[in-house]
């Protein structure tokens, strides 16, 4: 091999290796900043997922089971919103939350609540569209059976949800993934303030830009671990696979 590209290749490997070593040292030394960022990310992700699913899953149920004027248009809107760019959501929210904006009175700009709001806006279409698809995938006889046996609307919906539990767990996982992985809205409305609104993704973006590759990589690994823990917890909640 030509010596110049070989040297470049070795430098790249060293760079990655140093980064990984640094990442594990940081994780092993219980770095307060890293754990603070991870905990904030987990808090924001959990709160936003709960809110987005609490609103989005019932909307998905309604879209899947009720016949009403404009239902197809609503489904199209929700499906389109899945591809909404996170920075655009951040910009819109910035306009709403800034001091002169209609929600300026809340004084949420550059707080973790603003990041939650942005994440809810991004995860809501995920929860609504995917839960609508999950419910549509359930045999329609299940709902009819529940109703003809005397179930009210809530019990009938719960019976359908039990049949679609694996798909609905995937909805929650996808919504959580959306909230912890997005960076655009969190950066714009959170401001990436150290010790206050710095999440794992905004920190990775910052430290990469600053050339602190090890710290960025460490935070990336923590992000993956957080996602892994939440997924394992959800799988345990689903119970065993029997009918």
């Amino acid at each position, binding site marked *: 091999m030509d010596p110049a590209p070989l040297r470049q290749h070795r430098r790249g490997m060293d760079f990655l290796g140093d980064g990984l070593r640094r990442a594990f040292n940081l994780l092993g030394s219980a770095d307060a900043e890293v754990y603070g960022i991870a905990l904030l990310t987990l808090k924001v992700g959990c709160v936003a997922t709960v809110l987005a699913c609490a609103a989005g899953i019932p909307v998905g149920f309604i879209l899947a089971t009720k016949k009403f004027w404009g239902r197809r248009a609503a489904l199209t809107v929700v499906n389109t919103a899945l591809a909404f760019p996170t920075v655009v959501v951040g910009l819109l929210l910035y306009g709403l939350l800034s001091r002169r904006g209609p929600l300026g009175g809340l004084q949420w700009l550059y707080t973790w609540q603003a990041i939650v709001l942005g994440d809810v806006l991004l995860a809501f279409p995920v929860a609504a569209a995917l839960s609508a698809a999950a419910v549509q995938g359930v045999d329609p*006889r*299940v709902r*009819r*059976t529940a109703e003809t046996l*005397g*179930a*009210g*609307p809530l019990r009938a919906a719960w019976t359908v949800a*039990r049949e679609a539990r694996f798909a609905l767990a995937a909805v929650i996982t996808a919504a959580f993934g959306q909230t912890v992985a997005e960076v655009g809205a969190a950066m714009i409305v959170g401001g990436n303030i150290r010790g206050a609104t710095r999440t794992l993704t905004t920190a990775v973006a910052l430290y990469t830009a600053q050339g602190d590759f090890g710290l960025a990589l460490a935070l990336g690994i923590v992000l993956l671990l957080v996602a892994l823990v939440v997924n394992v917890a959800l799988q345990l909640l689903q119970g065993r696979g029997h*009918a």
Partner: protein
Amino acid sequence: MLELRGVRHAYDGRTVLELDAFALAPGMLTAVVGPNGSGKSTLLRLLALLERPTAGAVLLDGAVVSDARRRPATRERRRVTLVEQRPVLLRGTVRDNIAYGLRARGQSAAAAASAAAAAADRLGCAALLSRRRHELSEGEVQRVAIARALAIEPDVLLLDEPASAADRAAAQTLYRTLAEERARRPLAVCLASHQLEDAYRWSDDLRALADGRLSPVTPENLFRVVLPPASADGMTHAPVGSLAIALIADRTGPAILAVPPTDIFVSKAPVPSSARNVFSGTVSRVARHRPGTVHVTGDFGVELVATVTEDAARELGLGPGAPVTFAFKASAVQVF
């Protein structure tokens, strides 16, 4: 008790059911028979208050409970229950399934489980209580679904082909259980079936559906045809399989033909008469109908059913494989 008045039901603009009146009375078992696609399942879903009619109304004890604008309340739906042709069991054990309706009515888990065990016992599925749906055969699922429906003690029980997956013995157990249940309390039962013999044997009232309308005659000898223009003598010859049935009609195009079994004259060989329709073939089945009468099914390329007295059947030697001639007048053929 439960009735349809002036009901029309359409899917995507296509009318699938049109009934001026249809009523179920307490303590009566009404059988609805008809070919696939005749509207039986739609009729049962409307009666079960699971769908609202496009036009007309469903009434319960004389009060409108479901129409195009009014959604039935849960307490009204709880008086009626439907067992679908291919019932589905919900997640959980057979016990959970049978107890489901009782739990939905607010019964405690212990009371519901005890009632579920009693209902399962009546349908001969007590041994299945701890099993889950994937551990059951199709026939067992059907029995559990009927036990689940009986457990809630509805005022109206609707059954769509309840014995379609059952063997003969299981079907008889089912009908006997229904008879016991009706003897115990004024339960109205409506069952859709294509098994005419069971329908005749167990029902108090038999209705035939064809193309979403009630047939004015009994369900045998119903044919979907395309009427050609009348010939010069004013007679229409409608093709039914390999037969051409002579009839009097004032229209052409798609129609349903009905030949009432009691209007068919049965003999061993053709005899001179005014009948325009004379078909010779062999007897394929003879079934006892009501006391004193039998249904004779003749194979003429197309099966036709005639009703004769037991004495006449004996005198003519009507048994499977025996030669037989059916004759009926063109004016006996009903077109609708």
